[in-house]
């Protein structure tokens, strides 16, 4: 049996488990597809073929010896290049970090994926130091949208969106500080999970904004997303923000009925500054779920502003010494944003963190009477690569600054979100399924129900 590009992670693992396909065949199929298409997509920055083959052979040997294998046995996956991969410098999309010593040990999430049987095949392109919503990178070139290679993948996990959207691998990992999982999911037409802040360990990944950084998976089906999420859960003393909660598996719950769940549409701020495609996508999802109630999220614009302030200042603090010593080795646009961030007066940062607590309490109140909030993942489908402005309601707006307006007020307080792809023509677009903290189970169950109804799906890549 040969691994076909559309095979899900669950399908590959099942075939490997049943000895219909070897882990090595699954790995070779992914490597061949990367070779065939990545010249165009530019999603990979490193392909770890030798490591992947050795890992796959070890899994096949375990199967031959009758040993117990994990739920992701033989499933190829790849990671945004801010994850430590033993033997590679963790470049985090930058030129500067290429001078770092190679990582000695894999990131915790890679170790957990591999413990479940998955096979790492490489590291993925991203916006420099994750300060990006476009998927463009001045050092490595842009990752390209698999549905139209003249368009953006979204960022900053652009390579993750491109690799999964292009079906090079069934699962990728990325990071999301202000929307960097949900935006590429939307533009590339795939599923993405930004878990609750603190749910998944960030140990041995290159940081951006410690207060807001999350890691999470991308996939082409909700089952695959849940399998990856379940494999990666659990406390980790190596990440100071990681929860002490035990593993709360979601995969066994996916088929549970969603009737009785109270679903509402986020109103006000979340219904402004959107193109008709985003309105259509939220409308389709809301209709399928029977959601008619509109809930106003108070002070969402201010939440976005506070997230912006925390991001630019913490990011500046992280990079201060590099800005002093190697300013010309940054992407100039990233450098100039970070320098400005270093100049924001300190009381503003404290006030933003205090506002964050106030805003968290407002959302906690909303989640007493609602289980799920729906909102656009992006205001538009994927813009053209290099596009600077778009026109909305007759007003010209900057693309980069407006791509994340609907994701930022949500990650600001760490709520779990599944971005689900609505397969509109000619391009897909995502909707955020937002839940109360630690309720990834509800978001994934709702996403799975929508998938079964045929309302959301990862379309086959049309640009390849």
């Amino acid at each position, binding site marked *: 049996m040969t691994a076909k590009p559309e095979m899900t992670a669950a399908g590959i693992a099942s075939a490997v488990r049943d000895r219909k396909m070897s882990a090595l065949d699954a790995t070779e199929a992914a490597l061949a597809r990367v070779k065939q298409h990545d010249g165009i997509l530019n999603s990979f920055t490193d392909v770890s073929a030798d490591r992947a083959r050795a890992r796959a052979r070890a899994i096949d040997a375990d199967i031959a010896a009758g040993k117990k294998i994990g739920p992701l046995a033989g499933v190829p996956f790849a990671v945004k290049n801010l994850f430590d991969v033993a033997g590679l410098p963790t470049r985090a999309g930058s030129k500067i970090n290429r001078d770092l010593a190679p990582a000695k040990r894999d990131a915790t999430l890679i170790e957990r994926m591999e413990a479940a049987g998955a096979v790492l095949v490489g590291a993925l392109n991203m916006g420099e130091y994750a300060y990006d919503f476009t998927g463009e990178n001045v050092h490595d070139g842009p990752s390209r949208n698999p549905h139209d290679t003249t368009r953006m993948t979204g960022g900053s996990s652009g390579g993750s969106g491109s690799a999964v959207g292009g079906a090079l691998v069934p699962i990728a990992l990325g990071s999301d500080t202000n929307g960097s999982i949900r935006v590429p999911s939307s533009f590339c037409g795939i599923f993405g999970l930004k878990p609750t802040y603190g749910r998944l360990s960030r140990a041995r990944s290159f940081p951006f904004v410690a*207060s807001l950084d999350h890691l999470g998976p991308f996939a082409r089906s909700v089952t695959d997303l849940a399998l990856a999420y379940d494999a990666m859960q659990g406390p980790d003393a190596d990440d100071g923000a990681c929860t002490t909660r035990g593993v709360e598996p979601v995969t066994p719950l996916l088929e549970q009925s969603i009737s009785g769940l109270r679903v509402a549409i986020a109103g006000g701020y979340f219904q402004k500054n959107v193109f008709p495609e985003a309105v259509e996508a939220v409308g389709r999802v809301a209709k399928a779920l029977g959601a008619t109630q509109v809930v106003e999220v108070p*002070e969402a*614009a*201010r939440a*976005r*502003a*506070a997230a*912006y*302030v925390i991001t*630019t200042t913490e990011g500046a603090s992280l990079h*201060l010494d590099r*800005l*002093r010593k190697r*300013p010309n080795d940054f992407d*100039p*646009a990233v*450098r*100039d*944003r970070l*320098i*400005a*961030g*270093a*100049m*924001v*007066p300190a*009381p*503003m940062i*404290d*006030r*933003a*963190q*205090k*506002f*964050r*607590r*106030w805003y*968290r309490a407002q959302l906690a109140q909303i989640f007493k009477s609602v289980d799920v909030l729906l909102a656009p993942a992006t205001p538009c489908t994927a813009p053209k690569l290099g596009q600077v402005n778009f026109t909305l309601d007759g007003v010209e707006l900057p693309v980069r*600054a407006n791509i994340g307006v609907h994701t930022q007020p949500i990650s600001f*307080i760490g709520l779990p979100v599944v971005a689900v792809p609505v397969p509109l023509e000619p391009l897909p677009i995502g909707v955020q399924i937002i839940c109360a903290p630690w309720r990834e189970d509800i978001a994934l169950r709702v996403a799975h129900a929508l998938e079964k109804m045929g309302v959301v799906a990862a379309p086959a890549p049309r640009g390849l």
Partner: protein
Amino acid sequence: MAEPLDDYIDAVSKALALPVEEAWRPAVRANLEVSLRLARLVDEFALPDETEPAPIFTA
């Protein structure tokens, strides 16, 4: 004519030993204007004196 933020940029640049070359100044200034506008939006929101910031240090 000097822009209103230029003196501030010069002073902070010096205080932080953070170089700002002339060619970068317009972009740094534009970014700072956005950051300060958004920071003011947060600043304008009255919060009780007792409000704790979101991150909590655990000893």
